[in-house]
């Protein structure tokens, strides 16, 4: 983003690359077997989304977006990852390999979902002045892979990170579709996310306190 004097197409290309990084970090989260690295990947993904927010704020001269960007940077890159990392450290279990599927089939499934998302959303009749349409298509892929992450990984950290990264996907989509959304509403969204993080944290601790594990394999009592 430092290249202020660069041509618009170069900037757009750079934005597309950053959007692609958002999707790649989602894949890495899916693949990663250490809870700590998942949380760090989430922080990196949030950073990418913040960079894109700064890009939109600069190119479209929306002052409110700078405020939003700083807020979401502080919350999603610093506060939320710190809270979850502390929780993981506290319970002293680093979940490894909680996959329901083999790594190969999991990644293959994620690729199929991403291709589906990119093609469906890429064909929508949408003309955005803030970011290329490819960013929206990638956001759709991020959301689908986030669902896969929650479904195929059975430990509470993966599932929580899956939800938070789903929210990153929606943020990315909203940068493309609704860059002008009133600031107060965006702040309300962020505040809600923070509250959700606290609730996730409380429930993770409750779960660990009762089951002595972060795996969700024990959560099979309620059926039918």
């Amino acid at each position: 983003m430092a290249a202020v004097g660069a041509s618009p197409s170069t900037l757009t290309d750079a934005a597309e690359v950053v959007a692609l990084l958002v999707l790649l970090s989602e894949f890495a989260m899916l693949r990663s077997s250490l809870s700590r690295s998942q949380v760090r990947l989430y922080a990196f993904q949030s950073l990418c989304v913040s960079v894109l927010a700064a890009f939109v704020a600069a190119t479209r001269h929306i002052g409110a977006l700078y405020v939003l960007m700083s807020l979401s940077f502080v919350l999603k890159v610093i506060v939320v990852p710190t809270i979850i990392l502390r929780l993981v450290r506290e319970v002293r279990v680093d979940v490894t390999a909680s996959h329901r599927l083999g790594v190969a089939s999991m990644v293959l499934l994620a690729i199929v979902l991403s291709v589906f998302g990119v093609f469906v959303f890429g064909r929508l009749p949408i003309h955005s002045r803030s970011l290329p349409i490819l960013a929206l298509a990638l956001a759709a892929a991020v959301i689908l892979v986030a669902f896969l992450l929650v479904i195929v990984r059975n430990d509470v950290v993966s599932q929580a990170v899956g939800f938070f990264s789903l929210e990153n996907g929606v943020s990315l989509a909203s940068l493309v579709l609704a860059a002008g959304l009133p600031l107060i509403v965006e702040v309300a969204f962020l505040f809600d996310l923070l509250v959700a993080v606290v609730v996730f944290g409380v429930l993770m601790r409750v779960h660990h306190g009762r089951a002595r594990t972060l795996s969700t394999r024990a959560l099979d009592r309620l059926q039918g």
Partner: protein
Amino acid sequence: MGALLVAILVVPLATSLACLKASARLARALSLTSGAATFGLAVALIPSHQITTALGGWLRVDALSVVFLVAVTFLYATTTIFAIGYVRTGSGPVEARYSRRFFAGLNLFAWAMAMAPVVNGLALLWVAVEVTTVVSALLVAIDDTDGAAEAAWKYVLIASMGLGIALLATVVMYYAGSTVLGGSYELSYANLLGAATRFPPEIVRLSFGLAVLGFGSKMGLVPVHTWLPDAHSEAPTPISAMLSGSLLTVSFYAILRFYQVTVRAIGPDFPRAVLLVFGLASLVLAALYLARQHDLKRLLAYSSVEHMGILAVGMSFSAPIAIVGVLLHVLAHAAAKSTAFFGAGSVIRKFGTKEMSRIQGGIGALPWSGPMLVLAVLALSAMPPFGIFRSEFLIVEGGLAGSSTAVPAVLVVFVTLAFLGLSWFATQTMLTPTPDGVVRGEENAWMPVSMVMGLAVLVLLGVHPPPQLSSLLERAAAELGAHR
């Protein structure tokens, strides 16, 4: 009138904060007053014929909002009465701490649910629904058992993922609006409804589909209902009643707001088709699951899925009378389901189990709650003279007025099947001889009183709905495009 709206939001919030500090006795008195006062304020809005706004356009209430506001606040009022009898008082610090948390949470939950129909605009509506999720997830977990922890985790995860999709729906709708209204505008209902006819159809369709999937996961529509039976069965009974009677309908309200804009933009065919698919799936699956439940609260939870299916199917019928029926169903279901949960709470207390095979002779053991629970179950099965009979009658009548008779026929068949499941429960557990070891009598007067109120409202809605309420329902149906 604007001050009324502000009061509806301030009173429960202030009560919730006060409950954190107050003594147990004072917290109960405050909650009771707050519930009754909030319901009174909502009822005072019924005769108003214009749209009320407050706080510079942040709050806005039309006839549709009032219908849901009345349902939410009625449940708030009866649930506080029931909760006073249900939450055990004790002198120990553990009981005092539980009671303080419980009443603070209950009032906060009611506040969040009252906020959803009162705020102006799809974005604030989403925020309100998300707040209901986080508050209710903590309330589901409050009993601190293995089952409660499991249910709360499933609930918060599935509902939050669903609401992520609902947020995407909101953003997509914002984009649809920005093609007409320009890059930066308020997502208020007036703005959206005013410009909806010029929205791009594909985008509106995408938004509506995402909204039904997203909010549908909180409303309990099949196949995104899986958290619902767990949360309803593991939560404390007063919370189950509020989850089932008002939380699900608040999410339905959110879907109706998207429906309203979508119908204005692209006509009713697409939204009706989407709701029909989700509604029929919920109705059919829930009716089948009802027949094989062993847990009393799970039985009632599946009955909620069934009724949410009926609401969605009702919205897919073209005749205006069906929409009036759907809105009446929202009110009647809130009263009937909460009464049934209250009765179930008394039964579970008496027999110390949720397993239906171990509950015998409820009607003899509980001289008031027992018979009233049977009546509530009959009301849920759409027996006259209760309100659900009238609302389902209107829905089926509206369905038969349309082109297809197949869907109303399927509706009637599966409602009957659900009736069989529920009446099997009633005959096996309630209408059997009471075993010798069981002590006869109610635990206290609070719990039966809350049920009397629910049944009274059901009879009122079924026999003779007040004319002002009928007029409200017709105005709300007209707002949803029923005159087309």
